[in-house]
């Protein structure tokens, strides 16, 4: 009898312990809005696949339901999704199709879309999802996300300052970086630099299986948690540089730099995200 109750207590302890650990794990790694396409430097125009997933790119320990709200079970749809090529803006919201995306530990509601990147030059894709309710923090997160693809190698729009509420304006073409090269950007809010902005950097550590909408095996292991989400800061002019040690996709998220600070009466972190691709040198 005594033995039984002891076992009971210890299993309860273990449960509480693992729940705490799960809580810590979720809190420790950064949320990143993914705006993924397999190749950002296209030799010629073509229709590309895009996946819009709210996830943790390095650890892949939780895939969020995009547009989750605290006061409703219904997910809120994407606020804005468009592309700019040679200064011309085209709305892409109608191209988004709801999907279930499967990570290593769970599945989440995400989107898939296709885009005909026909014309030469840069195509700046901007995704503004609805704020997401993060229950652990009782707060909302909205990541205004930029991915830039290029057709044929002529630069046209990549360095444009779009005056977004939260934005990282690149000073390096995000699609033309060798592995081992560096990326420089300026954190801005409505065109104004944000001094000493806090930036989280993560490597997309998994294959994205476009066909089956799921992640594959991880590429590298972090020696310690500080390498999973790397925290850096912009300088007094909002500028930062980061060296990309490995080919693949790197996400940069400048936290809480947007104008909007509350949503539905709760705290809102309006972040600026940009995705950068380093190409292997071979």
């Amino acid at each position, binding site marked *: 009898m005594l033995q039984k109750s002891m076992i009971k207590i210890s299993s309860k302890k273990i449960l509480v312990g693992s729940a705490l650990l799960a809580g810590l794990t979720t809190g420790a790694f950064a949320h990143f809005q993914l705006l993924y396409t397999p190749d950002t430097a296209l030799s*010629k*125009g073509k229709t590309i696949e895009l996946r819009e997933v709210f996830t943790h790119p390095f650890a892949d320990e939780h895939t969020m339901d995009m547009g989750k709200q605290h006061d409703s079970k219904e997910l809120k749809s994407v606020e804005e999704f468009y592309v700019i090529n040679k200064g011309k803006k085209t709305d892409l919201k109608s191209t988004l199709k709801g999907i279930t995306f499967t990570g290593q530990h769970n599945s989440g509601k995400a989107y898939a879309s296709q885009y005909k990147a*026909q*014309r*030469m030059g840069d195509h700046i894709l901007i995704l503004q999802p609805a704020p997401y309710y993060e229950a652990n923090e009782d707060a909302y997160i909205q990541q205004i996300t930029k991915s830039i693809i290029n*057709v*044929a190698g002529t*630069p046209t729009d990549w360095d444009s300052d779009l005056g977004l509420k939260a934005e990282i304006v690149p000073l390096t073409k995000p699609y033309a970086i060798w592995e081992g090269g560096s990326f420089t950007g300026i954190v801005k809010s409505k065109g104004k630099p944000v001094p000493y902005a806090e930036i989280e950097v993560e490597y997309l550590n998994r294959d994205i299986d476009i066909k089956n909408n799921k992640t594959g095996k991880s590429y590298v292991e972090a020696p310690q948690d500080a390498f999973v989400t790397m925290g850096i800061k912009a300088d007094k002019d909002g500028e930062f540089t980061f060296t990309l040690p490995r080919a693949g996709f790197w996400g940069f998220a400048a936290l809480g730099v947007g104008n909007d600070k509350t949503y539905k009466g709760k705290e809102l972190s309006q972040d600026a995200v940009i995705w950068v691709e380093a190409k292997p040198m071979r």
Partner: protein
Amino acid sequence: MKKVLLGLIFLTGSVFAHTAIMSCFDNGDNTITCEGGFSDGSSASGVIFYVLKDGKKVFESKMTEDSEVTFDKPEGDYEAVFSAGEGHSVHVKSSDITE
């Protein structure tokens, strides 16, 4: 003499520092659009463009203000040529032009 030398250096620099680029696509209505440009982002407006078929020019024009040209799709194989001077011409084969 010094001025001339400097001028030459500058000219050389600007000519060789960038690459001519052209990309073409089929509009699906029996016309083809070719866009021209340079790796430094400069405009291709006014650059000579022509279409070769069996070694003969069947269309000739200049790149518009928007650095592009649209022409009727020739039957069979052809080649689109962006001719921005010596060492700067780009040839795109019809087999590489898709919708």
